[in-house]
């Protein structure tokens, strides 16, 4: 694997939109060419090199390219947008849209991420050691085609609207989440290892949610149908099994209605 290192040396006055920081955009280029890649600061065109010192050399393909950002990206948006392979590691925080529309490869953020992390993701892996704000793995605003594949792991807390319109893939929140989990989802799996305040599975058609802590306010559209033993992300426990959202349309398969499943750890 070939490593490219970006070292931030100047704080942008606005936020930088860096769709171009991805193994796909870097592959096959020299460090000098990477410095010349265009990014946006508000409505102004700037170059990656205006804000980052670029060193090392990428591989010929995205798959052979690792990117290490040796510093904080709190004012950097769109890291790894649409990336298909390779990896990005950030020493610190990142702003919105980390790994949006990502198809493959791996992103590791050692700090926190802002909203829209893994939005409409199709494949690959995102790991955030800190917290995430809102819209982890959700669909783009207005779109009914959300996350389709891949894995997002937030080791800290997450905000609201997790997995909206999710169709596939896995989202793991290791601590607590606020409200709106898997709203409108038609597939995929969300695991919340801490507590959730409420609105879990609203208008959910298909898919699974696991809550290993407590749900403060259950939605009335979910009905308990039994108790099951499950081994979820390294935790073996007994779960209350609910189906729902009973207020939503549901597909039929082999003569049976298909519901979404909500598993809440039995206390």
């Amino acid at each position: 694997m070939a490593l490219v290192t970006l070292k931030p040396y100047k704080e942008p006055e606005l936020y930088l939109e860096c769709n171009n920081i991805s193994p796909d955009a870097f592959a096959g280029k020299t460090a000098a060419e990477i410095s010349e890649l265009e990014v946006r600061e508000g409505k102004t065109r700037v170059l990656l090199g205006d804000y980052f010192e670029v060193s090392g050399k990428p591989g010929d393909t995205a798959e052979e390219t690792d990117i290490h950002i040796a510093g904080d990206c709190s004012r950097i948006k769109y890291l790894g947008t649409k990336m298909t392979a390779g990896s990005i590691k950030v020493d610190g925080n990142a702003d919105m849209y980390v790994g949006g529309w990502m198809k493959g490869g791996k992103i590791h953020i050692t700090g926190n991420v802002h909203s829209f992390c893994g939005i409409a993701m199709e494949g690959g892996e995102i790991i955030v050691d800190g917290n995430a704000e809102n819209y982890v793995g959700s669909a783009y605003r207005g779109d009914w085609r959300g996350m389709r594949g891949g894995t997002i792991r937030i080791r800290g807390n997450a905000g609201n609207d997790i997995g909206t319109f999710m169709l596939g893939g896995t989202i793991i929140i290791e601590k607590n989440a606020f409200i709106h989990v898997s709203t409108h989802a038609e597939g995929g799996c969300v695991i919340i290892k801490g507590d959730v305040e409420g609105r879990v599975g609203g208008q959910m058609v298909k898919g699974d949610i696991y809550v290993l802590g407590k749900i403060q306010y259950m939605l009335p559209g979910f009905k308990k149908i039994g108790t099951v033993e499950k081994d979820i992300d390294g935790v073996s426990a007994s779960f209350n099994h609910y189906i729902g959202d009973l207020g939503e349309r549901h597909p039929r398969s082999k003569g049976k209605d298909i519901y979404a499943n909500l598993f809440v750890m039995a206390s």
Partner: protein
Amino acid sequence: MAEIVIKNGFVIDPARKINGDVMDIAIRDDKIVEKVGSGAKEIDARGKVVMTGGVDIHAHVAGPKVNVGRLMRPEDKLFKSPNAQAPYRVESGFSIPSTFKTGYDYARMGYAFVMEAAMPPLHSPHVHEEIHDTPIIDQGALPVFANNWFVLEYLKNREIENTAAYTAWLLMATKGYGVKLVNPGGTAAWAWGLNCLTLNDPVPYFDITPAEIISGLIETNEYLGLPHSIHIHQNSLGTPGNYEITLDSFRLAEGVKANNRFSRDSVMHSTHVQFHSYGGDSWRNFESKAKEVMDYINGQKNITVDLGCVTLDETTTMTADGPFEHHLNQLNHLKWANTDVELETAAGVVPYVYDKDIKVCGIQWAIGLELGLYAKDPMRTFITTDHPNAGPFIRYPRIIKWLMSKKAREETLESMKYTDKVIDATDIHSLDTERTLYEIAQMTRAGPAKALGLSHIFGSLAPGMEANVVVYDLNFNDMPDDPEQIERAFLRSSNFIKSGDIVVKDGDIVSHGNKRTFWVNAKVKENPQVIRDIHEKFLKEYTVGLGNYTVWDCLAPNPYVIDIDVEA
């Protein structure tokens, strides 16, 4: 005095029966002239095709329902909104582009005039605000009449003179261009949760039938002598088996003569006929009736049509046919917006994905093209997509490609999942017709200009006409084997001169032009009863005062008003 000469292009101008002659086209200021001086700016069109600017007779490009679509579908803009290039405005959206993108995209394709196809009268100020914000292209808007309480009440009593006086007033009040009918009676019935699916279903409360509304408005239109005929979106749109209702509506025009001073021969423009040429009695046995419908139109000379071709894209449907949009939402479960416009109309908006791998969509695609290929008179058959209902207007070049190239049609047909089923349900596979550039110019320029009563300024390159001249990178004598090149050439013109102003160069916008708003001011003899009715209805029924209803002049700051004196 600005002079331009477009030199040595292959000129295609069906209005003068010119088909590919190598000629110069001279422009002085905003008009085409015989000759210009030696100091004129020269544009070299050698080896390229030269036509007059395109005329779009039917598109939904401005106003509340377009804007509801924009608000409801932020995802329509995703990755489709490139950064602005100074001094031009940012362009955003695909099926419901921003006003700026709308103007720029039409201009890149060489279009000079676009008719907004359905203006809710109460919201006409919004329509005009958006038209004003759409650069370059000239535009008009058709207010909707066929579910309007005044019209229903007058026509129920067969009061043509009163309908005409009200129509003239509404055109003036809304700065409207002509008489649009959308699902006559059906949209009014929708206020009761009902619809009118045949021409004889009575409208609840008003007790009038769609057939009576259509006939009454044809009569009204010809009484006033408006530049355009009635423009109708018929009942039962998008329903298997609806072609018989379509033919029934056409028959209402039989024997009616056009009365106007604008060289218009038609008395009915039937829009997006693709949606109205369906056979079968369910989506299972859904099939094309394009031949039956076009056979009738071929023989009935006082009807014009536009195609409403399905382009196999993800798009946004929007129509004043409220019940239809509800029906669509029940089919696809996507987002649905619906509104009722008091006393006048209604509207709905639903996103739609015409997937080439769904059998029904493939058949719809074929029907639109079959109609375009079966048409015997390209002067009465116009290319549209009912933008954005069957697809966005930026696909016109793709439709031209399909109509001009059997190879292109076969490629699309072959790429479908249900090719054989589409072939079984349509004639598309056996149709060998390939439209010529001359016919395309009829279907996109000369024809629609004549149907709109605008053939004295648009639709031809004759001296005296508006200086709208477009150059396409196509060699008339050596057309490309690769049909993709046809689409590319029509999508981004080499040059487009709009009203004497060079607005496009090598496919890029280079000027904001001087757009105008066309509307029709029909002066009728003062009609005290209608004036009293208007005052009374506004007092009793409307939520707005009459004084706040009329479109202010400042909303159409660059008007082109067509005055008509209606003889008493």
